[in-house]
């Protein structure tokens, strides 16, 4: 076992309907940025992706992308999939690969295209994150499963609808400054509350948009990374729970997140109170509230309140999703975890531009797959 | 026909969907005077199956109700017949789906039967015979249909959805009712038919009356009474096939039955014609209220054409069984009125694309 991997380079593409770019093109754009910044080549590549097989007919994706891109010599390539936490899982695979000493440098890329098929097909593809035989078979949409959690949470903790709407409003406000974001227009609480019901109580503006994007991180052994600022991937953890909602112990929390956080924080030698910023998986506004609780930022039932009281703003007690989160930056499903990680890294590097939070030495990201089944948490620390 | 060993009914159960489409609403859409149909047919509204229902799903609920009343395990059922003219598949028996859902089988006779509106009682004749022969202990006969009529056609006003299941077994006082005898009477009388690929049936209008319904219903009933040495006044209840609310009244009058004997089993005025379920659902409603010692006549009619006629005497065992499942009245009281557009949406009158992967 060696030292924690260090970030040698990062890359992001703007999220949206990238008609002119294939999966390989997006992969190329993000990976080239990361490799040029790093000045070193990857020895292996881990790709986070959820639905390219279903929607593009392309399995064997790791190889298909690096071959299709041609940005670096072909190396061992692995697709890593865990529904919407595929990106986080790919990063975890890269973390293990470098930390174990098997590879000196790996490229982790999250890549996804969701804009090219009719929305029905996309909805059905994304529903594959649920239990195919006993949730999707019966007509569950992924949103409706999350709606069960939102209803339970609001009822159990008496949380006003507006508090959840405010989370979406903050995300849009933050994304105005994010050149990579899919949605960059501000919205109001009223906009959220009047948007159409997808699966009650979840409304359209509670949901992150679907789009195309790719993000990349090149991880390497510390001695290979030059430069004044070194950002270390100090710890990662994965936590799991049952795939289907009927097997969960509660419908108003996500123990998988808590388990992942415990492992990540312990490995990184930090406490949740040491964090200067956090990226949470706000696929739906409810998930942002639950994430803060399950990560230990606040106690049960206090998640929405944290946002409501202004504590999540860039200059707040603990900035949450300063780039706009999944809601406004976007959620190209398999890529999202890598976007979140890159955003934390760039904050620590002081490269976040208008989105820079005042203090960024230690940051964490959270990526959640399924309706609460597979959580990945990572902690980045400024090393020097 | 009298079975060599006695056969009794152990369980009965029905299912009627909650949706109702009124004759007034159908008339509104097609520009007809509702009085024409309400009065002439003596039908006010019909039961319509919901979008997630078909002859299989309705048969299952009816079968479950019958099993609950029978008190027997589904594994003891040795035959399951589904009589229907609206099976979900042209080729793939509804009976095996229903059997699996109820837990019947694998060692069971199972088949779908078609004889228009008398397919349910066909299954009953076959089950009675299998029980009486000693080949099986218990048999289940189900009549289930989601009947359709062409848009604006005469039949559309009455073609309805429903199901009833009857379980028969060895004769016993502990059962609900015992069979005295039955008769079947058939001929090639083309009063109503549907060719392969045709979406809606064709019918002979007036021809469906005298040469079809009345000839067979009255012919079978008279023959049965003669064989059993019974007369109309011997019966406390009489149930005829009920394509509308008029024909049964006319048949009763022709045969000499009093209108009061017809009342409990005449449902078509409020649910329409449930085709293969029609006469046996009327029978089910009678069993919901009949008392030990009373005698019931049931005569079905199926186009194409034929009638099955049965005489049953109610046993003491009916009392303990009655409340073990929902009654016909319980389903009748669950009533949700829909408009013609929803009816089309529910029953596939509007083609939707897609399908699950």
């Amino acid at each position: 076992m060696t030292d924690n991997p260090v970030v040698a380079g990062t890359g992001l593409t703007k999220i949206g309907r990238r008609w002119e770019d294939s999966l390989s093109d997006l992969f190329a754009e993000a990976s080239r940025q990361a490799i040029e910044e790093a000045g070193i080549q990857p020895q292996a590549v881990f790709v986070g992706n959820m639905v390219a097989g279903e929607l593009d007919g392309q399995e064997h994706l790791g190889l298909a992308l690096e071959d299709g891109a041609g940005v670096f010599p072909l190396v061992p390539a692995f697709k890593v999939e865990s529904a919407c936490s595929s990106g986080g899982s790919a990063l975890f695979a890269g973390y293990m690969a470098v930390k174990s000493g098997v590879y000196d440098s790996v490229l982790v890329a999250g890549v996804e295209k969701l804009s090219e098929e009719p929305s029905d097909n996309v909805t059905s593809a994304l529903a594959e994150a649920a239990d195919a035989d006993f949730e999707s078979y019966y007509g569950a949409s992924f949103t409706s499963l999350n709606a069960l959690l939102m209803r339970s949470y609001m009822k159990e903790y008496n949380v006003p609808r507006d508090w959840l709407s405010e989370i979406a409003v903050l995300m849009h406000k933050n994304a105005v400054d994010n050149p990579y974001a899919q949605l960059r227009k501000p919205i109001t609480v009223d906009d959220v509350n009047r948007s159409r019901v997808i699966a009650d109580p979840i409304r359209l503006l509670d949901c992150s948009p679907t789009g195309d994007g790719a993000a990349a991180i090149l991880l390497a052994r510390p001695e290979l990374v030059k430069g004044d600022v070194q950002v270390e991937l100090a710890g990662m953890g994965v936590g799991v729970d049952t795939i289907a909602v009927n097997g969960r112990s509660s419908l108003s929390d996500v123990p998988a997140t808590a388990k992942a956080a415990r492992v990540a924080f312990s490995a990184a030698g930090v406490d949740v109170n040491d964090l200067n910023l956090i990226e949470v998986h706000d696929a739906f506004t409810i998930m942002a509230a639950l994430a803060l609780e399950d990560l230990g930022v606040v106690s049960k039932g206090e998640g929405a309140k944290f946002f409501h009281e202004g504590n999540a703003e860039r200059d707040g007690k603990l900035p949450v999703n300063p780039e706009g989160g999944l809601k406004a930056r976007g959620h190209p499903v398999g890529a999202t975890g890598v976007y979140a990680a890159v955003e934390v890294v760039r904050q620590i590097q002081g490269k976040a531009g208008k989105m820079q939070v005042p203090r960024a030495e230690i940051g964490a990201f959270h990526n959640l797959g399924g309706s609460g089944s597979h959580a990945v948490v990572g902690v980045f620390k400024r090393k020097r | 026909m009298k079975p060599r060993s006695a056969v009794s009914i152990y369980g009965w159960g029905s299912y009627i969907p909650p949706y109702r489409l009124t004759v007034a609403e159908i008339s509104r859409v097609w520009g007809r005077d509702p009085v024409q149909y309400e009065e002439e047919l003596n039908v006010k509204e019909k039961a319509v199956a919901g979008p997630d229902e078909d002859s299989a799903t309705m048969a299952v609920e009816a079968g479950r109700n019958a099993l609950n009343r029978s008190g027997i395990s589904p594994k003891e059922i040795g035959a399951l017949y589904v009589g229907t003219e609206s099976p979900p598949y042209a080729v793939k028996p509804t009976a095996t789906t229903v059997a699996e859902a109820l837990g019947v089988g694998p060692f069971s006779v199972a088949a779908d039967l078609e004889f228009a509106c008398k397919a349910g009682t066909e299954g009953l004749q076959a089950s009675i015979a299998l029980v009486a022969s000693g080949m099986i202990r218990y048999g289940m006969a189900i009549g289930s249909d989601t009947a359709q009529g062409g848009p604006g056609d005469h039949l559309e006003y009455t073609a309805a959805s429903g199901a009833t299941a009857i379980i028969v077994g060895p004769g016993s006082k502990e059962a609900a009712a015992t069979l005295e005898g039955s008769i079947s009477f058939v001929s090639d009388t083309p009063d109503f038919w549907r060719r392969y690929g045709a979406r809606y049936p064709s019918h002979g209008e007036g021809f469906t009356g005298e040469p079809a319904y009345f000839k067979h219903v009255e012919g079978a009933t008279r023959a049965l009474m003669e064989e059993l040495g019974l007369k109309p006044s011997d019966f406390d209840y009489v149930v005829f096939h009920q394509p509308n609310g008029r024909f049964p009244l006319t048949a009763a009058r022709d045969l000499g039955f009093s209108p009061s004997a017809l009342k409990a089993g005449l449902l078509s005025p409020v649910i329409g014609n449930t085709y293969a379920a029609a006469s046996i659902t009327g029978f089910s409603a009678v069993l919901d209220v009949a008392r030990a010692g009373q005698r019931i006549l049931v005569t079905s009619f199926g186009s194409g054409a034929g009638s099955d006629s049965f005489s049953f005497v109610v046993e003491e065992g009916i009392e303990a069984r009655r409340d073990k499942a929902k009654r016909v009245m319980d389903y009748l009281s669950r009533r949700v009125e829909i408009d013609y557009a929803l009816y089309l949406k529910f029953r596939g009158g509007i083609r939707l694309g897609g399908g699950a992967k």
Partner: protein
Amino acid sequence: MTVPRYWRNIGAYYRLEGIKCKNCGSLTFPPRNSCPKCHSKDVETVQLPRRGRIVSFSLLRSPPKGFEAYVPYYVVVVELENGVRVFGTLTDVFGEVKEGMEVEAVFRKISEDGEEGLIHYGTKFRPVARGC
């Protein structure tokens, strides 16, 4: 949904069958190869109760492919009389839906594989009418 996959699940879909672990006694739905609690292979098929209460629900207005005909419909988590929770959808809802409402299992059509493919059946839940 391939034909064999549908066919393998018929017990769970049609009869609400789960498994009971002969080692630790746990009941699980859907059925599995081994007990998810103690991981013993010694499990047997059991039919679960057909009545329960709603734990949580959501009225779905944006359906996945193949479910357009049923919109809007409720997805629910139901806790059956023996404590086992199942995921499902409601049918025949003619009034308000509330947590704690009593429901009963019914056999219904779930979807169709186009006009020529298999019809998929399964178990939905129906609010229990008072007095039944």
